[in-house]
């Protein structure tokens, strides 16, 4: 008994810097409240209350973030919760990015104007084609479980990018993934595709998590700790087995690259992007990408910076494979959502270039470049999927490319905005996509990756072809007689698309202020 008491006294409660982690706490707390509301509120009140709660949460979390960022916090960042969470400048930037992108995604998710009752059904698991399934597909009451699920996923993402040890990172990975698996299966139209997407994403994601966990185990065996900084100092000068280190690194990175949809670990991406409800696809494409690359950046620069010469060649190759797969397979796609999925694989390759742009002197010019790229890409993607959700026929969204022919004649504004977004994805100057590519490529050249940059530029040119093909279809082809109509977007979708397009333009013209934010500090090591 005495022994137990003595042991209990040895365990000290960790210091918690509540101010620093307030944004995460707000989001996760609101997610819990949201679940309670789902249980307690009558059905007709839920949508409005949940929506208001979600938006207020996001605004509140952003406010807490701004307050903390403006306060006299330590410049190099703080590690809190016994060193499990590191709140440093990149983490703050990533949190901000995630919060604003989630704001846009929630607006898309909440929209009920283009599809009566919203794009979600109540039960993902009902067998498609059965009477019950048809009944739930035609029911117009909006299901509101999506709001807490989204908030939980967001909380997981925010924790993920700030995790300072691998175990916290793993938990965060699961917290962000599980709601997404479920969200993918909730599409109101094309139920079978949606269910396939959910199952595929879940199975492959479970594999990837296993890889990640195995890597963590091996690294623990190597370093005797799961802390990123401990791994770095263990690797700095010991005669321990490199096999453990690199096997662990390899498995860990596979798990991370899977989440980031970097080729050749991208196989789930097109199917899931296509099958998931479009607002969820937007959320995944923007926020999951940010979270995954935030994690990759932190792991590579904090834990493995001093072993970069051993692994950089491998990730070099992975980046090439990803860009080539994205650019070449994107050419053959006939579905808009799949095309954007392959485009995201190519973009993941570009982002990986930024992530491995470390100089021998130990500086990482690629970090701020990659952060900027993530923000720019996220906004463009959300707006692009917002547009995709507007082009519809009687079966729901008309995602086959041939149905987009002559769109510019029928709805010039929608076609014009989409053209602008495609040009941004292609990296044409005066859009944020170009500035993003530019900063990433200049960081890469600075750290001696010139051949990789040349390959990336050629891949950009190849990828430009499939973006152009859509523009050609929209502007220069004649519309099909039974073509889709463009729904008049409701206020929410309009705001989300406008937000994305305006940010894409503004960051293309005056990127300086965001570049400054992205470059304010480095990861806490």
């Amino acid at each position, binding site marked *: 008994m005495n022994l137990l008491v003595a042991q209990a006294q040895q365990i000290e409660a960790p210091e918690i810097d509540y101010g620093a982690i307030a944004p995460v706490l707000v989001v996760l707390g609101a997610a819990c409240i949201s679940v309670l509301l789902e249980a307690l509120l009558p059905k007709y009140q839920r949508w409005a209350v949940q929506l208001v709660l979600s938006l207020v949460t996001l605004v509140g979390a952003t406010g807490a973030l701004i307050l903390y960022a403006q306060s006299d916090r330590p410049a190099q960042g703080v590690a809190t919760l016994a060193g499990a969470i590191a709140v440093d400048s990149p983490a703050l930037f990533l949190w901000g990015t995630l919060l604003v992108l989630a704001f846009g995604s929630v607006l898309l998710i909440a929209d009920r104007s283009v599809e009566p009752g919203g794009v979600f059904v109540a039960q993902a698991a009902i067998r498609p084609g059965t009477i019950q399934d048809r009944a739930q597909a035609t029911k117009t009451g909006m299901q509101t479980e999506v709001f807490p699920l989204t908030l939980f996923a967001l909380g997981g993402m925010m924790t993920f990018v700030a995790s300072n040890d691998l175990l916290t990172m793993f938990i965060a990975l699961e917290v962000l993934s599980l709601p997404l698996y479920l969200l993918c299966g909730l599409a109101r139209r094309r139920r079978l595709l949606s269910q396939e997407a959910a199952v595929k994403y879940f199975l492959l994601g479970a594999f990837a998590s296993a890889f990640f966990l195995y890597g963590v185990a091996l690294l623990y065996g190597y370093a005797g700790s799961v802390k990123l900084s401990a791994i770095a100092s263990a690797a700095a000068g010991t005669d321990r087995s490199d096999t453990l280190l690199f096997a662990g690194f390899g498995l860990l990175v596979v798990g991370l690259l899977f989440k980031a949809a970097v080729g050749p670990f991208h196989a789930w991406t097109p199917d899931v992007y296509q099958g998931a409800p479009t607002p969820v696809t937007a959320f995944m494409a923007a926020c999951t990408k940010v979270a995954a690359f935030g994690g990759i950046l932190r792991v590579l620069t904090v834990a493995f910076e001093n072993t970069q010469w051993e692994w950089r060649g491998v990730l070099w190759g992975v980046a090439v494979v990803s860009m080539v797969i994205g650019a070449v397979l994107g050419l053959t796609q006939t579905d808009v959502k799949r095309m954007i999925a392959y485009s995201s694989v190519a973009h993941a390759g570009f982002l990986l270039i930024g992530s491995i742009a470390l100089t021998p002197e130990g500086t990482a010019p690629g970090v701020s470049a990659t952060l900027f790229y993530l923000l720019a890409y996220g906004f463009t993607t959300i707006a692009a999927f917002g547009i995709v959700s507007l082009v519809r026929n009687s079966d729901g969204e008309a995602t086959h490319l041939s149905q987009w022919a002559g769109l510019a004649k029928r709805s010039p504004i929608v076609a014009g905005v989409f053209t602008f977004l495609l040009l941004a994805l292609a990296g044409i100057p005066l859009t944020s996509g170009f*500035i993003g590519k530019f900063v990433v490529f200049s960081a890469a050249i600075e750290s001696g990756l010139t051949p990789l940059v040349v390959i990336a*530029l050629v891949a950009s040119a190849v990828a430009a072809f499939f973006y152009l093909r859509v523009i050609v279809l929209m502007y220069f082809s004649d519309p099909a007689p039974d073509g889709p109509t463009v729904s008049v977007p409701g206020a929410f979708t309009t705001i989300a698309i406008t937000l994305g397009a305006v940010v894409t333009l503004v960051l293309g013209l005056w990127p300086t202020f965001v570049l400054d934010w992205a470059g304010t500090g480095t990861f806490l090591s």
Partner: protein
Amino acid sequence: MSWVLIALLVVPLVGALVVAFLRKDDTKVKLVALAFSLVELVLAGMLWFAYDPDGDRIQLKSAVDWIPAFGVQLSFGIDGIALVMIAVIALLIPLVIGAGWTEKLPAGRSQGGYLALILVQTSVTVAVFAATDVFLFYVLFEVMLIPMYFLIGGYGGARRQYAAVKFFLYSFLGGLIMLASAIGAYAMASDELGKGTFDWATLVTVVRDADPTTQTWLFLGFFLAFAIKAPLVPFHTWLPDAAAEAPIGVTVIVVGILDKVGTFGMLRYLLPMFPTASKNLAPYILVLAVAGVLYGSLLATGQRDMKRFLAYVSIAHFGFIALGIFAFTSQAGVGSVSYMLNHSISTGMLILVIGMVIARGGSSQISDYGGMSKVAPLLAGMLLISGLTTLSLPGTNSFVSEFLVLIGSFPTQPVATILATVGMVLAALYVLWLYQRMMTGPLRGDALVAAAAGPGAVGDPEKKTSIGDLNKREIAVLAPLVVIVLALGFYPQPVLDVITPTVGATLTEVGVTDPVSVQEGK
């Protein structure tokens, strides 16, 4: 006076906005667009007089910070070469608008959209020539593609989609490779100066002393972009497609103006920034140049389609220009720059005349015409004049420049020059043969035969056979060009005075001096 340059950039954009707002009323749209293009012409005239040929290397400068993080500025300024190119843009745009006054656009397309895009294209192209920041130049180099992409793809012929995408992708790829080189130069500057910059003059001082290997790689990046743009063989295949599918006014802009960005880039960026690499690689580029002259001439001779014919003629001429640039003598350099100007004028005129022929016959196949001088003698005369200036007949403007290129290149590059001279002979062949087939001999082609037989004689009596000679509008479009062709043929001095100091400065930056024989020739 630097406001004139800024006004040249802004006026067409304002015009494009006004035109886009007025797009419902076709006549008003055309008048407004023409008015704005004439204002542009006046401004260009003012710019000509504001420029001092013996002054600074870059004049009428203005700059504001754009992205301070990379030392990128919105900075504009002109040298003699840029001035000449801006002037010729301002000259051609009103003529293009005038020539296209009654042109039928594809169904569902409005004049407003078409002319707004042309005005945007004007502004961006002027900006490309005026940019003095390498980053800004790259940005404009790519942005320039967007209005042109919509002009070809939206208003062109049957295979316009293919042509537009091909045009875009070729130039876009070249531009991206150039971007890699530009970033490389930027990285060198930030190593050396402690702070990165894209300012052209600063980059020149940093990069020109780099070691030859680095220079060669950076050179190749820029060169690829310019070789595609110019276009040099074997990077030329987009041009015939683009020229053939674009509406005739757009063909004038592509062939007459946009392509010059390539040769302009060689003079402004390649030679001063990479002098060592330029000299080392010159033999290979000369091979491409001579190949272009011969290949372009031969293929021009064999073309059945008039618009593709124009494209191959231009490829031959760009070979001459590249020869003059990489011969590294001041005579050849001056010849090349004046060739850039004169090619715009003569080829521009030839394209406009051929556009008038096509407007009458409804076909761009040479075989659909014959004996046209009987029906339209003035038009035939114009085709002859524009053809003769294209083949560089003495007394026309092109002769001066072609002669300067050949005589200036001979002392340093005798073999290449002799081979290129064959191109002059072939030029006479392809131009005169074209004229002979289309204008002389018995009447050929449905439209022409019908017209000669009198109104309503053949086929549907209701259908008017409207093959007439040039009308007043067409004469007004072509007359200034005839005057300029002859004026510059007999008295090219004002243009050469503007060009010579800039070319001299460029060659000094490369570090070459004229061989003795050229200096004696002066």
